[in-house]
């Protein structure tokens, strides 16, 4: 037994390929037999991934889901930002430059609107929960953008560590909600064409949520959503600790 665990730890990435292959195979069967293909297999596989992440977190007490369990440590490489971004870039092969150019300015508008709306949403929730100081409100609002914007903003303006932790949690919740929710709401918001996908990516911003959600909805839409979403975290890190914080200081202490 020990030989096997040691071997799997050492060959983590290859073992992760095997496990993910099995997850996708089983998800395909579930999709066909239990949901009559109404829920796409990839959506089920991604949700299964989230469930595994939760169980891994509970079991190991760590922060990186299932990859904190030693024999599954290869998930960290396979699902890490390097391979993820590499694969996202490759999806651009089938994308149309013309569509991107035409939707360009609406995409940019959706980015700014997405940051402001998410920020406001986070601030309103924080207000309801009794936070009244500009620093905490701004940090939680920034966390509502993405789980990177939150801690970057909080560190820049000097928020307390529990507020920063809260902002990260809010960002992770957002990523999870977008991942799971996208295939289900796609029909109702007309998310079936590259133009809407670009607007969607800009408004939601969370790269992991947007790209996973679109992958589960229609893989053809991934490059368009990813193109706008990739600017979101940077713009959020730019605007939250600066102009949005200054605006908050006008209204709160």
């Amino acid at each position: 037994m020990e030989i096997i665990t040691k071997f799997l730890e050492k060959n983590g990435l290859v073992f992760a390929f095997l496990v993910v292959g099995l997850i996708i195979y089983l998800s395909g069967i579930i999709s066909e037999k239990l949901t009559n293909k109404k829920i796409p297999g990839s959506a089920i596989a991604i949700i299964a991934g989230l469930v595994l992440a939760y169980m891994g977190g509970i079991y190991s007490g760590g922060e990186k889901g299932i990859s904190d369990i030693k024999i599954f440590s290869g998930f960290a490489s396979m699902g890490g930002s390097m391979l993820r971004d590499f694969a996202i870039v490759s999806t651009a092969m089938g994308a149309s430059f013309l569509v991107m150019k035409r939707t360009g300015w609406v995409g940019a508008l959706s980015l700014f609107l997405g940051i402001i709306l998410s920020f406001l949403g986070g601030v309103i929730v924080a207000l309801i929960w009794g936070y009244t100081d500009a620093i905490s409100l701004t940090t939680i609002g920034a966390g509502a953008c993405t789980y990177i914007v939150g801690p970057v903003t909080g560190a820049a303006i000097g928020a307390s560590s529990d507020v920063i932790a809260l902002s990260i949690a809010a960002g992770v919740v957002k990523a999870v909600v977008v991942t799971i929710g996208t295939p289900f709401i796609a029909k109702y918001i007309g998310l079936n064409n590259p133009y809407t996908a670009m607007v969607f990516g800009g408004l939601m911003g969370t790269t992991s949520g947007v790209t996973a959600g679109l992958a589960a909805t229609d893989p053809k839409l991934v490059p368009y959503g990813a193109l706008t979403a990739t600017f979101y975290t940077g713009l959020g890190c730019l605007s939250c600790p600066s102009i949005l914080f200054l605006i908050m200081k006008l209204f709160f202490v």
Partner: protein
Amino acid sequence: MIIYGVAILAFCYVVGQIFGEFLGKIIGVEANVGGVGFAMLLLILLNDWLNKKGYLDKNTENGIQFWSQMYIPIVVAMSATQNVKVAISSGLIALFAGIVPVIICIVAIPFLAKLSKNTQLD
């Protein structure tokens, strides 16, 4: 050859990401600004150019296609490494601060999508 495709993809990735890093530095944020986006645009342009020159054969293209087929498996692995526990256990405020913005933005989508469709007609 397959490796040419992978190398072309890697070239776009490296150039785009480094550009994103510098852009972040220039505007003074601790994040990569649009690196993936620049890499994607570069790949589209390069692919177009190589196609016109006739430099792309099936195998070279397969080197890039492989990775776009691996995209969903990679996303599954990514979701299995998210900090889902903290998302669920941080209490209602984190839950609401994550969900409310999503709902607000969903409401804004049809409005913005209309704008982009109108541009299409021009």
